[in-house]
């Protein structure tokens, strides 16, 4: 067994959160730049140019990419040979509080969803999901998820008879209805299968994949491509003002499910796709 102390996580998670708030992942920046070159709408190209200006301003002016600096969600993959001492939630919350205070990031967490004046002040607690994996490493996948795009996410308990077409129409209709509200261009995370609680986890998990990298399963990759084409044919466009670039990518993950069910979850991610990974 490899002994690890939860307190070893605090410094690297704090550093990652500070990096994420100010620097867009290079794959997302490149996708925005590529779309600016190809979108047929002049207004869409103008907006994509402003989004790239924003990425540059965040770095040069040391301003967060977006004022919604997100709710911190962590997928922790714990190696089966790791013996973790201490309090994981406490160590991660300490990192969040340090990063959000030192970085002048916005505290966006209410202790009580029904009391508007219950802001916890340091953006804690983080939401943590644990998974056991082979090996002696501890890997933390971290996302700082904005509220505006999260609000447009959805879960459908489809009937198996709805099939592939039902999945496509549910997702496309949701994106069309959301319009400019979730800050398109979007990254769409799709969880297909599992059940009522695991389909949304798959959807969020899929957002960690590098942009444009298709699913290793050819059938799933074909579905991703078909949904991306259909979503970009809606004409919603950047910020809802028209154009070809409604989504930059569609990522899907699947899992076994009950033969009576076809759970489908959509996690909507805005263009400020702030995520990263720490390996210990």
């Amino acid at each position, binding site marked *: 067994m490899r002994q690890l102390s939860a307190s070893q996580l605090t410094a690297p998670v704090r550093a990652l959160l500070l990096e994420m708030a100010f620097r867009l992942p290079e794959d997302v920046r490149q996708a925005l730049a590529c779309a600016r070159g190809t979108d047929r709408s002049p207004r869409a190209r103008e907006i994509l140019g402003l989004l790239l200006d924003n990425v540059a301003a965040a770095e040069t002016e040391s301003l967060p*990419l*977006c*004022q919604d600096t997100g709710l911190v969600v962590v997928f922790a993959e714990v190696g089966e040979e790791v013996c973790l001492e201490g309090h994981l939630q406490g160590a991660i919350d300490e990192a969040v509080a340090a990063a959000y205070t030192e970085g002048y990031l916005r505290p966006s967490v209410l202790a009580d969803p029904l009391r508007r004046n219950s802001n916890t002040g340091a953006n804690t607690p983080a939401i943590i999901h644990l998974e056991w994996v082979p090996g002696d490493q501890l890997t933390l996948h971290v996302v700082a998820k904005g509220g505006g795009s999260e609000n447009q996410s959805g879960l459908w308990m489809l009937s198996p008879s709805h099939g592939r077409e039902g999945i496509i129409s549910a997702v496309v209709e949701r994106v069309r209805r959301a319009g*400019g509200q979730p800050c398109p261009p979007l990254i769409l995370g799709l969880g297909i299968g599992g059940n009522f609680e695991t389909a949304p986890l798959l959807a969020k998990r899929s957002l960690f994949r590098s942009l444009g990298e298709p699913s290793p399963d050819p059938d799933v990759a074909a579905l991703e491509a078909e949904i991306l084409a259909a979503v970009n044919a809606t004409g919603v466009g950047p910020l*809802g003002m028209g154009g070809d670039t409604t989504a930059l990518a569609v990522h899907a993950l699947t899992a076994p499910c009950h033969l009576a069910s076809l759970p489908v979850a959509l996690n909507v991610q805005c263009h400020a796709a702030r995520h990263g990974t720490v390996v210990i």
Partner: protein
Amino acid sequence: MSDPTASSEATPLRLDLPWDHECVAALRAGQDVRLYGEIFTARDAAHARLLAALEAGEPLPLELEGATLYYCGPTPGRPPRVVGAAGPTTSSRMDRYAPALYRAGVRATLGKGERGLSVREACCECGAVYLITVGGGGALLGSRIVEAEVIAYPELGPEAIRRLVVEDFPAWVAYDAHGGSIFSDEEDLP
């Protein structure tokens, strides 16, 4: 919807705030504008309080006549900056409050995304507009703010009402006072 090919070549129109009536009436959905002057941040919690005060006939913390309300909860300013990132939040969450505020004198709201029919109708009724700015453009927009001070509800933290002074702040007319809309999925009102 406005013609999506129209805006990008035209020079943006400079708008000095607070507003006068004729200036609002001349605006058309789809126009590219740059804001200069005073705007006030207010989002969910501040709106609930403003409306409660308005309905109770209590004094308000700002002059609504001619005002622009910006749906925004900025990040704190890293000294010497007065404010940090300051992009728009989703406007539709404030739809239930907007018509009453337009009727009380607000000339413009500023945010992101489509809104309900009641807001578009209130713009026509009151001679007011709904503007949108760069969703997810918090760094760019924060760099265009030259003054910021909390003027009400400091206990709401990021949701407090702030008076901002902006310069060269990019925006588009989303709903005009004549039923027009900028959005690709909305027809103009008759």
